């Protein structure tokens, strides 16, 4: 064929946009596919699916795997190969990766099974260099119109950005998993190095240099030998790095390969920046030669360097801090020595402080309340300090044995009552009862008054401190020669285990609720010492939660006392000034202490939380910090501090160590355990000096430790330093937070039970749940509803088990946004160990793939639909194929298609097959009728039950109805999909309808042109076209009855198949027929046909066998124009090939005239004419096929001709059916005899004569012939006599045909035979006897239309 321009058929590219235009521009005629106009339907369908898809696809077709692609593929993957690649062999387009993909494609073409690869690494050359790329793709087979594998379709999504992004992200995440914040520089570098070394894809090698005093020094390296020449800093241009700039360095020489198969060729030199200073150093990062150094890559290297720099900064700060703490510890130690040695020296300055302060407070002209308040503080704390100093002095005196007691006889009851009374107001302000039960004693007790005061005051102070409800009782009794003083409280009590140590010096009972944690721990020890100086004893009895009783026994008299210390003179009764400090101190424990606001100053304000149980200290700190411009919140204990910190995270917490409820160390631990406050810096204040104490504080996680007393300047400096240090130190955490928050993907952290404990802002953006609801325990609120969406719930449940159990993975699940709408997310996760707790946590990211999900769903649904449509041969067939696909897509109960074709009832198709309109419910019929009048392609969803849509059907309006399972909602996405599919379905049906019509046309054409409507007797034909759904092709057969009674026989084969070949064939056939009628000479006919063919496009090179047969004699004249030889099979099985008279195909010039040959067809021989489709097989010589055909005829030569034709077609058909047009023509000589004659006896002789002649032509011997004549004569006589008694003049038909070995006759009349009754008609009965005797087989078939007698006999050889 030819004459069809490339523009014809170009509409296949119409949907392709730019790519379509570029495809159109390809010189297709130079490719094996030929011009688009000649492409098979299957290729056209494939190309149009490809072009109309927005999913990246390419395909290869035909022997050279000619390359096609769509716009999405061009944009995503093809790069600079476009448009060069179009129409080229795929192996050329993807030469560089052919080793990877070639075998896959061949496997698809070989097996017909699709391949699947996820994230396959391929080195593409599409941007001027070999590029590391990742692709997820599937190759699926494409078949041509005959179902043969001729190509493949690749649906691909390129994952390069994702894969590389994840790899880099993993490195950054690993860097961020730094298990401790504070570490040495070397540890920081070693840790970072270990992480960087795990990504030798992006960082084939790294070299980290520090700027030391002596110049750059190599501090760490990964992926490169330490003695590599490039490890010398001199190798690198360091000036830019010193200025804080990055530089790209081209590498020459032998550099490491990293995880690649070729060495790095470039490195990026990045500075390790120090905030506000020259860089710490610089890092040289070897670059992946298979990736361009784009913004992303550069950013990644810079982030890595930034992280290393931050780690170095953090380590250096920590080291500085550590040195400071050590220095402080040394100082403290010195202080302690100093303190204990010369504490008495305090008394002088204290006195000099207290004196003037007393004086100042007493001045009547002191009007400024602020000054007075400050003076009160000074006074109170001066008293306290004095008391402490005194106590210490007492101890040192006691220890040194230098305590000078003066025992004088005192009225113990009165003295005690007096002392107790000064405590009354404090105790009552604490809302406790105070009972003083001191009846007069029979005799005085020798006491040192000052010491006794301390005993009583200490005990009362102690009772108040630990008692919150109930009261305090002090009692004096005389018992067995001794005075017994008891101090009883209803306080917290002392655990039994603690009682033995109760009086030990510096022993404090931990974790005891008290009004204040102030205290030296020497009060009770001093009491004991003092009581013992009096020769007395003190014991304690206590029950935790009930109270404590101290019992002191002092003997009457002075015998037990050193005489030199005893005086008989009564001491003064006045309460000494030593009382004040105790009372003052106790009062400060009670609520209601004034807190004076101080105006705030501007500056670098930080929010500082102050926690101290001492109101004075609290006030002091508050005033001090506010004066420095900080925002201060003050709380009285650790628990309150923790609550306040959780409520509003301060910049810094300044906390006392000793506090009731929750002490400083516990506070720090609690803060660190909570992720919200883990990073909040804490400055601990304590009076407890010593290295051990500070280490304890730091180990607990405190950031700094300040020992009382401290100067205001020092405190402020520490506060400032800690706020700044924390900012620096939190750089890592803030960097991480910023990084996570800046992620385009949602980020989350789950604990090992699956509760979500951390999220980023994208998380909130995507599914609407914010950090305020943390933690989110499973079942998370975004899970689909189990009731209404069990399928989604199941998917999420499975994904959740994966998340909890696997160490890493990915999944895509539906989730419910907080506002209720449904979306799809693709998540990937990893298990990591929480560096702080050592517990397993799950870190994951996800992104909203709703659009992609539905796009893919739509694409695949459309593709499935298209495939089914393209396979359908008729419009009803298409509906039958498509409805189940729709049912499956929506998991619907059923799908109904109703066509309103103008008939009485609409035609209904369902997934269960065709259904009557009446078979639908009244409601459904109504709904469908209403839908018909809705706008086309507009989905209408019912609240429950399903959705429908109207579309165009070739026969009228069609309504598609999807009947959903109950409760399954039909979402907006479903509606979009339904509209899309309905659109495709409408188009598809229309197209099939057109093809239907085309085929009808073609069939009509075939009927008109393929061959004669009526074959002469003795012929049988078969025709099988190659191109489905067309039933015509380029082959033909013809018989022409010529004027002289001879029969022209033609079998021909035009190039190609399909409709176009058929049109050529039709014209050739007609021309040949006309020429034959005119010439009656095969060679002349073919010569004339040559001239005709040269005028007819597509007719060149057609092959034709043309013969003229004399049916009477079997004489055959024939000529062949390049056609395979006819085969004659003799009755005895011998075979002749009619291979004479051969010449070139039609239209091919030749100098010699076309030859002609003659042949006489022997009797009962079978002539086989055919086209090469019958015999041609790949990888087999044509002669083999011809021999097989001859053998097939030989085998079945005893069969009737029609049966023989079927046998030959069936036995020659390849397993997969004929893949080329096949025409077959059989003639058996002689042709059968067919005679119709009136049912009159006078006709019998003529008929007999004809039969006798025919039998002679068949070569039947005279005896057999006579037998046949007799049997047939009897049958005819019966027909005349019985069949037509009521219908004289009716016709009788005699038909006789021969096979190789048998004769078959039928005598048919149109009447009814009576059952033969030999008695009534003896000679007719005799007639039957004759028939049966003469013939091998006699059958009588009587039907409504008449009677048929069948006679058969074997022909003797």
């Amino acid at each position, binding site marked *: 064929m030819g004459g069809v321009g490339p523009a014809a058929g170009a509409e296949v590219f119409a949907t392709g946009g730019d790519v379509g235009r570029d495809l159109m521009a390809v010189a297709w005629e130079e490719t094996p596919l030929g011009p688009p106009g000649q492409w098979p339907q299957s290729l056209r369908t494939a190309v149009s699916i490809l072009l109309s898809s927005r999913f990246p696809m390419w395909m290869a077709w035909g022997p050279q795997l000619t390359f096609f692609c769509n716009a999405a593929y061009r944009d995503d993957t093809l790069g600079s190969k476009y448009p060069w690649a179009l129409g080229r062999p795929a192996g050329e387009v993807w030469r560089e990766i052919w080793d990877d993909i070639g075998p896959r494609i061949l496997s698809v073409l070989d097996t017909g099974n699709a391949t699947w690869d996820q994230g396959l690494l391929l080195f593409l050359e599409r941007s001027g260099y070999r590029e590391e790329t990742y692709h997820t793709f599937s190759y699926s087979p494409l078949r041509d119109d005959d179902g043969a594998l001729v190509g493949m379709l690749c649906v691909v999504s390129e994952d390069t950005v994702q894969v590389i992004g994840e790899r880099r992200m993993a490195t950054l995440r690993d860097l961020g998993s730094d298990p401790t914040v504070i570490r040495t520089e070397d540890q920081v570098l070693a840790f970072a190095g270990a992480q960087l070394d795990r990504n030798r894809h992006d960082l084939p090698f790294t070299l980290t240099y520090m700027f030391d005093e002596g110049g750059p020094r190599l501090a760490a390296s990964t992926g490169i030998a330490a003695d590599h020449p490039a490890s010398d800093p001199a190798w690198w241009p360091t000036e830019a790095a010193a200025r804080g700039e990055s530089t790209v360095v081209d590498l020459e020489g032998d550099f490491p390969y990293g995880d690649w198969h070729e060495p790095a060729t470039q490195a990026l030199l990045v500075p390790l920046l120090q905030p506000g200073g020259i860089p710490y150093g610089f890092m040289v990062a070897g670059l992946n030669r298979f990736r361009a150094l784009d913004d992303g890559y550069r950013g990644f290297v810079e982030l890595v360097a930034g992280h290393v720099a931050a780690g170095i900064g953090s380590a250096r700060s920590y080291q500085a801090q550590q040195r400071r703490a050590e220095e402080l510890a040394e100082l403290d130690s010195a202080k302690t020595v100093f303190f204990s040695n010369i504490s008495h020296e305090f008394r002088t300055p204290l006195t000099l402080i207290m004196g003037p302060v007393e004086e100042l407070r007493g001045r009547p002209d002191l009007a400024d309340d602020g000054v007075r308040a400050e003076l009160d503080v000074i006074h109170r704390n001066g008293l306290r300090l004095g008391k402490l100093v005194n106590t210490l002095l007492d101890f040192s005196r006691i220890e040194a044995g230098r305590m000078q007691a003066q025992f004088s006889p005192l009225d113990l009851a009165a003295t005690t009552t007096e002392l107790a009374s000064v405590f009354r107001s404090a105790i009552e302000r604490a809302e406790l009862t105070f009972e003083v039960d001191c009846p007069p004693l029979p005799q005085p007790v020798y006491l040192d008054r000052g010491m006794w005061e301390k005993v009583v005051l200490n005990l009362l102070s102690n009772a108040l401190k630990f008692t919150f409800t109930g009261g305090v009782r002090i009692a004096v009794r005389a018992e067995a020669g001794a005075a017994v003083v008891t101090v009883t409280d209803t306080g917290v009590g002392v655990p039994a285990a603690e009682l033995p140590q109760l009086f030990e010096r510096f022993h404090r009972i931990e974790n005891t609720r008290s009004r204040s944690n102030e205290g030296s721990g020497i009060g009770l020890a001093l009491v004991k010492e003092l009581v013992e100086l009096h020769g007395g004893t003190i014991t304690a009895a206590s029950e935790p939660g009930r109270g404590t009783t101290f019992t002191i026994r002092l003997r009457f008299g002075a015998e037990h006392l050193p005489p030199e210390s005893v005086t008989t003179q009564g001491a003064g009764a006045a309460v000494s000034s030593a009382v004040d400090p105790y009372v003052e101190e106790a009062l400060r424990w009670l609520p209601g202490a004034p807190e004076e606001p101080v105006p705030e100053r501007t500056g670098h304000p930080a929010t500082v939380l102050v926690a101290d149980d001492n109101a004075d200290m609290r006030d002091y700190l508050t005033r001090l910090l506010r004066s420095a411009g900080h925002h201060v919140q003050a709380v009285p204990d650790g628990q309150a501090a923790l609550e306040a910190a959780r409520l509003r995270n301060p910049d810094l917490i300044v906390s006392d160590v000793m506090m009731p409820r929750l002490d400083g160390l516990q506070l720090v631990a609690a803060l660190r355990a909570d992720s919200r406050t883990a990073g909040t810096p804490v400055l601990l204040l304590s009076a407890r000096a010593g290295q051990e104490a500070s280490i304890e504080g730091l180990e607990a996680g405190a950031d700094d430790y300040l020992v009382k007393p401290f100067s205001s300047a020092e405190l402020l400096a520490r506060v400032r330093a800690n706020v700044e240090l924390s900012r620096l130190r939190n750089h890592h955490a803030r960097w991480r937070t910023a990084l996570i928050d800046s992620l385009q993907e949602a980020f989350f952290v789950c604990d090992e039970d699956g509760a979500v404990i951390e999220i980023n802002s994208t998380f909130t953006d995507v599914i609407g749940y914010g950090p305020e609801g943390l933690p989110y325990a499973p079942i998370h609120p975004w899970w689909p509803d189990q009731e209404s969406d069990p399928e989604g719930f199941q998917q999420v449940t499975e994904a959740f088990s994966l998340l909890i159990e696997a160490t890493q993975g990915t999944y895509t699940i539906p989730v419910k946004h907080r506002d209720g709408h449904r979306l799809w997310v693709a998540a990937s996760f990893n298990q990591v160990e929480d560096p702080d707790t050592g517990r397993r946590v799950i870190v994951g990211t996800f992104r909203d793939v709703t659009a992609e999900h539905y796009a893919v769903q739509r694409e695949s649904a459309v593709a499935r639909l298209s495939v089914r449509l393209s396979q359908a041969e008729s419009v009803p067939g298409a509906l039958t194929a498509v409805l189940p696909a729709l049912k499956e897509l929506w998991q619907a109960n059923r799908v109904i298609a109703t066509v309103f074709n103008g008939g009485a009832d609409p035609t209904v198709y369902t997934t269960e097959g065709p259904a009557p309109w009446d078979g639908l419910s009244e409601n459904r019929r109504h709904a469908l009728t209403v839908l018909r009048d809705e706008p086309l392609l507009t989905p209408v969803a019912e609240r429950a039950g399903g959705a429908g849509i109207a579309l165009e059907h070739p026969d009228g309006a069609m309504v598609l109805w999807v009947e959903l399972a109950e409760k399954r909602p039909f979402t907006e996405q479903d509606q979009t999909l339904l509209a899309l599919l309905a659109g495709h379905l409408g188009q598809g049906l229309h197209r099939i309808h057109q093809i239907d019509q085309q085929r009808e046309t073609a069939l009509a054409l075939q009927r008109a042109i393929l061959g004669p409507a009526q074959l002469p007797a003795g012929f049988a034909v078969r025709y099988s076209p190659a191109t489905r759904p067309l039933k015509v092709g380029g082959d033909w057969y013809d018989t022409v009855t010529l004027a002289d009674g001879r029969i022209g026989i033609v079998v021909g084969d035009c190039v190609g198949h399909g409709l176009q070949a058929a049109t050529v064939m039709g014209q050739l056939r007609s021309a040949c027929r006309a020429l034959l009628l005119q010439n009656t000479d095969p060679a002349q006919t073919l010569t004339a046909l040559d001239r005709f063919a040269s005028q007819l496009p597509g007719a060149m090179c057609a092959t034709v066998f043309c013969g003229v047969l004399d049916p009477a004699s079997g004489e055959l004249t024939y000529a062949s124009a390049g056609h395979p030889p006819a085969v004659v099979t003799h009755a005895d099985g011998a075979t002749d090939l009619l291979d004479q008279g051969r010449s070139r195909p039609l239209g091919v010039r030749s100098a010699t005239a076309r030859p002609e040959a003659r042949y006489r067809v022997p009797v009962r021989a079978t002539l086989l004419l055919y086209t090469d489709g019958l015999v041609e097989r790949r990888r087999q010589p044509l002669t083999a096929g011809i021999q097989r055909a001859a053998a097939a005829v030989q085998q079945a030569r005893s069969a009737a001709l029609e049966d023989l034709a079927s046998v030959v077609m069936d036995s020659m058909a390849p397993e997969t059916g004929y893949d080329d047009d096949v025409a077959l023509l059989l003639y058996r000589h002689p042709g059968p005899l067919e005679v119709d004659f009136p049912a009159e006896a*006078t006709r019998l002789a003529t008929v007999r004569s004809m039969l006798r002649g025919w039998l002679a032509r068949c070569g039947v011997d005279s005896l057999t012939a006579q037998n046949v004549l007799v049997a047939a004569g009897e049958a005819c006589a019966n027909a005349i006599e019985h069949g037509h008694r009521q219908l004289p003049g009716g016709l009788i038909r005699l038909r006789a045909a021969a096979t190789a070995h048998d004769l078959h006759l039928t005598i048919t009349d149109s009447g009814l035979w009576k059952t033969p009754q030999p008695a009534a008609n003896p000679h007719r009965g005799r007639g039957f006897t004759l028939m049966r005797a003469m013939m091998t087989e006699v059958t009588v078939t009587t039907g409504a239309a008449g009677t048929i007698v069948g006679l058969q006999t074997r022909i003797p050889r």
Partner: protein
Amino acid sequence: MSTPLTLTPGRDPSGAVVLTAVGEIDMSNSASFAAALTDTQRDAGGQFTVDLTAVEYIDSAGLAALFPHVDHLRLLSNQLLAPVLTIAGLDDITTFPEAS
């Protein structure tokens, strides 16, 4: 065309009555054949011979005409008719030519 049949009564050299049939005998002319047989037997007044050697075809109607006369009848036949006459049970009164 009606079936060609010539019936000629006569005598053989021995003087016996002979009916010589030439042509074909079928239902269209079996009545004439039967009539000729009846006439011939009456003329012969006893045994007579029917010469069928020039008959190319005889069907059951023709045979039916022969049966009433079997007791008085001799048949001369050719090989072609032998199967029919044999099947009809007339072979015992028939003289066939020597097989060639």
